[in-house]
């Protein structure tokens, strides 16, 4: 148990070390999530566009 708390204490530098790693992890995860969500929105919008065009054609 004390091993774990010692690990997270980072020799007194917890704020700096975890502040660096935390923000980096959050940014990299959010970037991936945004790109995936963006793809879904584009596909939906383009599908709607194609549907509307085919309706106009008929």
């Amino acid at each position: 148990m004390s091993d774990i708390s010692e690990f997270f204490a980072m020799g007194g530098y917890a704020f700096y070390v975890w502040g660096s790693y935390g923000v980096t992890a959050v940014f990299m995860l959010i970037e991936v999530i945004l790109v995936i969500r963006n793809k879904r929105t584009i596909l939906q919008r383009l599908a709607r566009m194609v549907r509307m065009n085919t309706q106009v054609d008929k």
Partner: protein
Amino acid sequence: MAFQNSIIWLYFSSPKNFYPLAGKLIPVFAVLAVVLTVIGLYIGFFVAPTDYQQGDSYRIIFIHVPAAWMSMFIYIVMAMYAFVGLVWNIKMSEMMASAMAPTGAMFAFIALWTGALWGKPTWGAYWVWDARLTSELILLFLYIGFMSLESAIDDPRRAARASALIAVVGVVNVPIIYFSVKWWNTLHQGASVSPTMAPKMAAAMLNSMMIMVFAFWMYSIAVVLMRARNIILEREKQTTWVQELVTNKK
């Protein structure tokens, strides 16, 4: 052979052929990124010893250096794509340049952020107007300038041409960042790793850092290819193949 190679490059410079290729490559690079991150961080936190001068605060290096290197490397590649797009009018090249900018900007920000959090315990300040820090901040502004100029112009071809100029001109900043610790008397430490000298750190520290460099590299390739696919869909939406792809997905 050279002829065959150039045929392959021409083939994949067409968005229609690039799109499925990127789709196949993304999972490979994503898996590599995750595996390398796990190994790199394991070595960084459980194998690498505590530094006798800096204590555990030095462990920030395992993301600080890879992020800083990637921010510079991505910029150079982005400027090359932008240049090729500008000179030879290759659309896929323009799209690759714009796909890279957000990831490069993110790594520039991470380099500055982790640098600030490392600077406080080691130098006593989050920020100083030192040559290395200032030129890295300029790199972040170049990325932001590239992206905002691109999004400010409606016509995608004209937007790509205008922003390519920023990218190409801004390349001079990259060697300035790299050599700033030599050229000026900076607070930032000199290169820990360089092609001409033996590395100035313990093997486990160096291993972890280099594995994290490759992890960030693989991550960048994966996420840039994902974004490039989005850009292709957006810019090729009038073509039959995109319209067929979109309707088949539903």
